[in-house]
């Protein structure tokens, strides 16, 4: 058959590659900044947009969506055309994808430090940006699927299946988790509340790890490891099995983020079982990656690209063994809310994603610029800095995690908490936080070496914008003699639909009973909606990212009930949009902070002074000061709109309450402010801090209310 000539475009992969490096550096520097803030809380004293709670979402989003996202697209735009023997479907769509994605990242880098956040982890961006993400993602999907449709090879190589699964699943996850009711251009409330919101969020959150950080990088691995080692993958059959098993099982595992929480037991059990099952397909991928290098270990000794791939895939194996272990309830009881989780995710991010990205960059640059890598020595130095940096980062945090958790749970012989002051468990682990900073610095130094190496390589070479290739046309009219999976591989659209079905089954089986069966969220008669002032205070709590350090979920353990008060019930969260369970306790849990009889109760004046200067109230505190909350006036221009939005979502405020909301707010603010003034604090009614105090003092109090009468009845 006649050979057709065509070209591969290198421009887009090159653009994505440079964006990967740039955003990688930015994301990691933000990470280093917040790591330092934890040991030097007053470092950015008074600068709201540099505070830990606002920068932490920026760090996670930048690393996930900007660094790994651009890395994934670099791999996809380079490998897809070469594997399918055709140029990408549309260069225009590719450009829209590239620039659209970068614009989204810039929008995130501006809005998150400003406190414009939904507060759902890795989904913090507000609704206009969410819509932009969905649109750009569809553009990417069309380009990818249409490229597979007009390919010149019969069969679609395994890397592409992983790309397709990534596209399909991330689209579903993003859309379902982002359904919000807008109040203004920068503020919205999720349609889900409390425990249900938590289930949707962690179904999303866990699968963001699965389908944004894992599947596209498995695709990358299946293309670039054979390329770099110049040998085919170890077992193609294994790749088929582990692909389907992985996408089928991963989607169920989300509830393991909510073990011992108010989520119903059946959903927790489901999450645990499927998490344990995940070991098999995950290790299938790791084994396939590592064994591809069988007989090439001599090359691994010399080639920094292969070295990085080996450490990356090994880190993947470690993290995917650790993950299922962490989802066992008994292990999770110790690990959850501690630095163990932070260590775990960084083995994944620094090891798996980081190392694979760096390896790919070192492999691609000389090929895109038709030259040799400027310095193999520097690349080797980068390898060692990255590897030791990762270990110096993770190991101290494992240690910190165990230590803090054991201290939280320790009782004296008399039956009292041995460390009743939370701060004792913080000061104990601060040395570990110092070593983490060292680890992060080493890792970033490696990245800076890579940037120097890349710039030098680019300068000494000349860019190849296009590469020629030729292949015979694929005659799709010919009857297909293949059977089974090979036939399926030949049908990209059907393949996409089946991937979608596979991931939907897991999602629906968890969601339908959770949302539809009333007994899953038993209502509590005394639980009532937030007052307008509390709602505004809650939105400040969300804006400042308080959830990044404080949980609102008391687990049913003796140690937690003793420390914080009665464990959290599902029915208490029904007005929480979004939920604020949190995932990390750098500070104490706040679920019952307002309960006057609890050991943690603090009066309004304490909170006021604490926001002004935490160190004044608790000398060793690592919480940053929040002077702007003290100084800023509360913006009440959208209060009525917020109440209306809540009413639309089914929150039972009395009829017409939106018009009275402002009066109610002012009355309550005056009461709190007057109390503070009586105590000698000079504060005006309309300050933000008043609203935040109102919210904090409401936390966890509803089940202690004696009367079930509406708190709005007088108004």
């Amino acid at each position, binding site marked *: 058959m006649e050979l057709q000539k065509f070209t591969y475009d290198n421009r887009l992969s090159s653009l994505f590659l440079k964006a990967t490096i740039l955003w990688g550096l930015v994301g990691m520097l933000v990470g280093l900044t917040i790591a330092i803030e934890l040991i030097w809380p007053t470092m950015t004293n008074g600068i709201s947009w540099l505070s830990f709670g606002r920068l932490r979402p920026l760090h996670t989003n930048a690393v996930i969506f900007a660094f790994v996202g651009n890395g994934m697209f670099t791999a996809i735009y380079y490998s897809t055309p070469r594997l399918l023997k055709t140029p990408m479907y549309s260069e225009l769509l590719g450009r829209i994808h590239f620039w659209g994605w970068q614009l989204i990242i810039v929008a995130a880098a501006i809005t998150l430090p400003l406190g414009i956040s939904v507060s759902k982890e890795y989904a913090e961006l507000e609704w206009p940006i969410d819509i932009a993400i969905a649109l750009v993602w569809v553009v990417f999907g069309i380009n990818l699927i249409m490229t597979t449709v007009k390919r010149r090879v*019969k069969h679609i190589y395994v890397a592409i299946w992983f790309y397709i699964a990534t596209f399909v699943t991330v689209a579903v996850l993003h859309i379902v988790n982002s359904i919000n009711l807008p109040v203004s251009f920068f503020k919205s409330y999720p349609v889900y509340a409390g425990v249900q919101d938590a289930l949707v969020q962690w179904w999303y959150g866990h699968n963001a790890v699965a389908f944004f950080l894992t599947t596209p990088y498995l695709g990358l691995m299946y293309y670039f490891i054979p390329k770099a080692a110049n040998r085919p993958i170890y077992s193609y059959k294994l790749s088929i099995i582990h692909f389907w098993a992985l996408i*089928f099982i991963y989607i169920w595992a989300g509830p393991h983020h909510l073990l011992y929480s108010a989520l119903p037991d059946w959903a927790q059990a489901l999450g645990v079982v499927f998490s344990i099952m995940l070991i098999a397909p995950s290790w299938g991928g790791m084994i396939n990656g590592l064994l591809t290098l069988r007989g090439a270990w001599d090359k691994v000794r010399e080639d920094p690209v292969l070295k990085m791939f080996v450490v990356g895939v090994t880190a993947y194996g470690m993290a995917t063994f650790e993950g299922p272990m962490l989802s066992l309830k008994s292990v999770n009881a110790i690990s959850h809310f501690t630095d163990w989780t932070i260590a775990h995710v960084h083995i994944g991010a620094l090891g798996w994603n980081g190392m694979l990205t760096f390896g790919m960059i070192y492999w691609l640059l000389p090929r895109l610029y038709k030259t040799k890598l400027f310095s193999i020595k520097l690349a080797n130095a980068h390898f060692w800095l990255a590897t030791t940096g990762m270990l110096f980062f993770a190991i101290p945090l494992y240690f910190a995690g165990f230590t803090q958790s054991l201290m939280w749970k320790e009782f004296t012989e008399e039956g009292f908490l041995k460390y009743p002051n939370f701060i004792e468990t913080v000061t104990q682990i601060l040395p570990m936080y110092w070593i983490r900073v060292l680890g992060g610095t080493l890792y970033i130094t490696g990245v800076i070496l890579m940037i120097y190496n890349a710039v030098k390589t680019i300068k000494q070479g000349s860019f190849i914008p296009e590469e020629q290739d030729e292949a015979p046309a694929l005659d799709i009219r010919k009857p297909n003699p293949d059977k089974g999976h090979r036939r399926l591989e030949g049908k990209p659209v059907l393949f996409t639909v089946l991937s979608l079905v596979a991931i939907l089954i897991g999602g629906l089986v968890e969601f339908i009973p959770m949302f539809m069966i009333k007994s899953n969220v038993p209502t509590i008669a005394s639980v009532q909606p937030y007052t307008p002032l509390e709602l505004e205070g809650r939105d400040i709590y969300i804006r400042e990212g308080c959830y990044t350090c404080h949980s609102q979920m008391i687990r049913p353990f003796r140690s937690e009930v003793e420390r914080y008060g009665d464990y959290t019930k599902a029915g208490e969260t029904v007005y929480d949009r979004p939920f604020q369970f949190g995932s990390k306790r750098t500070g104490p849990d706040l679920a019952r902070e307002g309960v006057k009889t609890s050991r943690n109760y603090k009066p309004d004046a304490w909170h006021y002074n604490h926001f002004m200067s935490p160190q004044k109230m608790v000398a060793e505190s690592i919480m940053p000061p929040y002077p702007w909350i003290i100084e800023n006036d509360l913006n009440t221009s959208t209060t009525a709109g917020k109440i209306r939005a809540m009413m639309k979502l089914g929150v039972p405020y009395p009829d017409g309450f939106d018009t009275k909301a402002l009066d109610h707010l002012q009355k309550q603010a005056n009461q709190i402010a007057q109390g503070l003034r009586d105590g000698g604090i000079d504060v005006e009614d309309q300050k933000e801090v008043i609203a935040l105090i109102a919210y904090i003092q409401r936390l966890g109090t509803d089940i202690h209310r004696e009367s079930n009468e509406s708190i709005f009845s007088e108004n």
Partner: protein
Amino acid sequence: MKIVTNALENIANIQIFPILGLLIFLVFFIIMIYRVVKMDRNEVDEISRLPLEKDQTEPKSYAESSH
């Protein structure tokens, strides 16, 4: 939407859902394993060499293999 909600609220034996999901997965998994084991070794070798094709000097070998 209300109709759907009502229907689902009164759904009987909802507890069976996760079990059904697990069964669907198991059946799918077993069929897949069977198919994969049955795959022809030569074909498998050929597909697994797809990323390497470009490195070979003669694109001819590709033309032969796809027919």
